[in-house]
């Protein structure tokens, strides 16, 4: 943008610090929607991103649910992929080396038991390129009868404490939206030493085929993502940001820079792009550019100034 005297205003500073991870911009891509990063090589220069969150990893490789696993719904989609991943060791040995240097990788951690989560955290600690861990707390806790870790404050506290003692990497807890008070869950995480919160994961949902009278997914229940969930996600990010002093990474239905700005204003320090990567594999890069353009247009010198700047006057 040209100032009146003809000189050019400095480009806006897009960098943010999220949970102790220095990001060149606040735009990350969400776990399970960006593969292991390499799949996007043909479409996107990964070094333009703030970073990316890889598909959730378990100790051993897993196959996941039977098909059909996805169905489209109004402005959204349901998925029931489950734990499918290559396993933590294969990720470190074969996927990470293909990621260009200088792209912060946040590894997502998954398990069916607390000690399995902690083991994945341990194996990722000290691995080059892994800048932080995001613990996916939305997995059913087998021993507690299938209830999600993220739905029970007690189980969540134990999980966060176990992961905390397994790693000195920045530790982010990704919360389930399928609870009465996500903010209360975020407080539990903060109390156990988490460095940041990521929200939201998918909303538990069900789609039905009236012709066959069957559920659309083999798993019956699935997780709703995409633009349909964005206002719900914004509400939850807003409530969490008010409740804790650790930073929040916001996501849910972001498809453009304006959506990213919405989450920042609600209190997110960084954002993740999920389902939109399927619609347009170049979208995360476009959002980075759009964010810079927004800042220029609004005279915002540092994107960090937008965080929590919702004007409620």
């Amino acid at each position, binding site marked *: 943008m040209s100032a009146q005297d003809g000189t050019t205003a400095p480009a806006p500073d897009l960098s943010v610090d999220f949970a102790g991870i220095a990001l060149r911009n606040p735009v990350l891509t969400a776990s399970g929607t960006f593969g292991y990063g390499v799949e996007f090589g043909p479409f996107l220069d990964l070094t333009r991103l703030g970073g990316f969150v890889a598909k959730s990893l378990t100790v051993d490789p897993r*196959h996941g649910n039977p*098909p059909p*696993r*996805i169905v489209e719904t109004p402005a*959204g989609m349901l998925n029931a992929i489950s734990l499918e991943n290559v396993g933590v060791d294969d990720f470190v040995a074969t996927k990470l080396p293909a990621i260009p240097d200088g792209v912060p990788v946040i590894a997502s951690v998954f398990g069916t038991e607390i000690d399995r989560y902690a083991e994945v955290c341990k194996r990722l600690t000290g691995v080059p390129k892994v800048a932080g861990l995001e613990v996916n707390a939305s997995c059913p806790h087998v021993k507690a009868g299938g209830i999600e870790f993220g739905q029970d404050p007690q189980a969540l506290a134990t999980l966060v404490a176990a992961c905390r003692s397994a790693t000195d990497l920045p530790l982010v807890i990704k919360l389930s939206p399928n609870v009465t008070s996500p903010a209360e869950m975020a407080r539990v995480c903060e109390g156990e030493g988490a460095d940041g919160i990521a929200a939201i994961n998918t909303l538990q949902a069900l789609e039905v085929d009236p012709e066959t009278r069957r559920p659309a997914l083999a798993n019956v229940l699935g997780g709703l993502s*995409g633009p349909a969930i964005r206002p719900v996600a914004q509400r939850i990010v807003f409530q969490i940001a008010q409740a804790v002093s650790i930073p929040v990474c916001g996501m849910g239905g972001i498809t453009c820079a304006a959506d990213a700005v919405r989450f920042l204003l609600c209190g997110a320090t960084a954002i993740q792009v999920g389902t939109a990567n*399927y*619609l347009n594999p170049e979208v995360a890069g476009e959002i980075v550019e759009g964010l810079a353009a927004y800042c220029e247009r609004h005279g915002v010198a540092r994107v960090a100034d937008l965080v929590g700047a919702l004007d409620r006057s």
Partner: protein
Amino acid sequence: MNVNAVRSLMAIERNEAEGRGGNRRLVLRAPADWPEPAPGQFLMLHLAPPEPPRHDPLLPRPMAVYRTERRPDATLLEVLYKVVGRGTSLLAGYDPGVALPVVGPLGRGFETPGAGETALLVGGGTGIASLYGLAAAARAQADVHVLLGARHADDLMGLADFEALGVRLSLATEDGSAGHRGLVTALLERALAEADGPTRVYACGPTPMMQAVAGLAEGAGVPCTLSLENRMACGFGVCLGCAVHGPGEKLHLVCRDGPVFDTTELRVDALP
């Protein structure tokens, strides 16, 4: 994973009815240097109205690359499609000039048959579109016999194009309005009985048709290749939504490992 795939904004050059059965022919203007697609590869077409941005339908739709034409200034991509739901209805309403975001070419295409082989290509419904490129590529070295089936003669896609290829063509319609009255699998039974020398079956169409075709090929001891038309979200191997069962514990991604599979790679009875 096909690393040649690119995302391009493609203007619609033509979009017109093909016969009276609800099939349509779409011609898209791709960049001149658009990657060379293999027969059986597909595109992901984003069909929500482009401006202002809308989210319904949210997901792009997979469509086979039917035919390409290289021009000095552009590559013309042809797609034959059937109007079956929201995405394809919207597409049918777009005039020439409207630009759609398209990702492709995607997936693993067909391996063309060897010299002197007999290739039996069995197509049903929209699956016919996936076979045209194979028929065109294989006819130089193989004895190509195309067997097409539909409910009614008007539903047969691309018929004139197959005729123009000069390959052997047999038709079946359920109401007898063209060719044999009945299912295309009856034609395949006959063709398998007549075939001598190395023979291979290729099929794309509704799941019950492909299952029947796979069964007939197996009974005749002939290798069989299927191209699957699954629901997809991304089309390039990241959502893991398009999985199908292989033997044992194995799961394949249709968009990345296929859409073309040898039946030995699949649990044909468990196809969606």
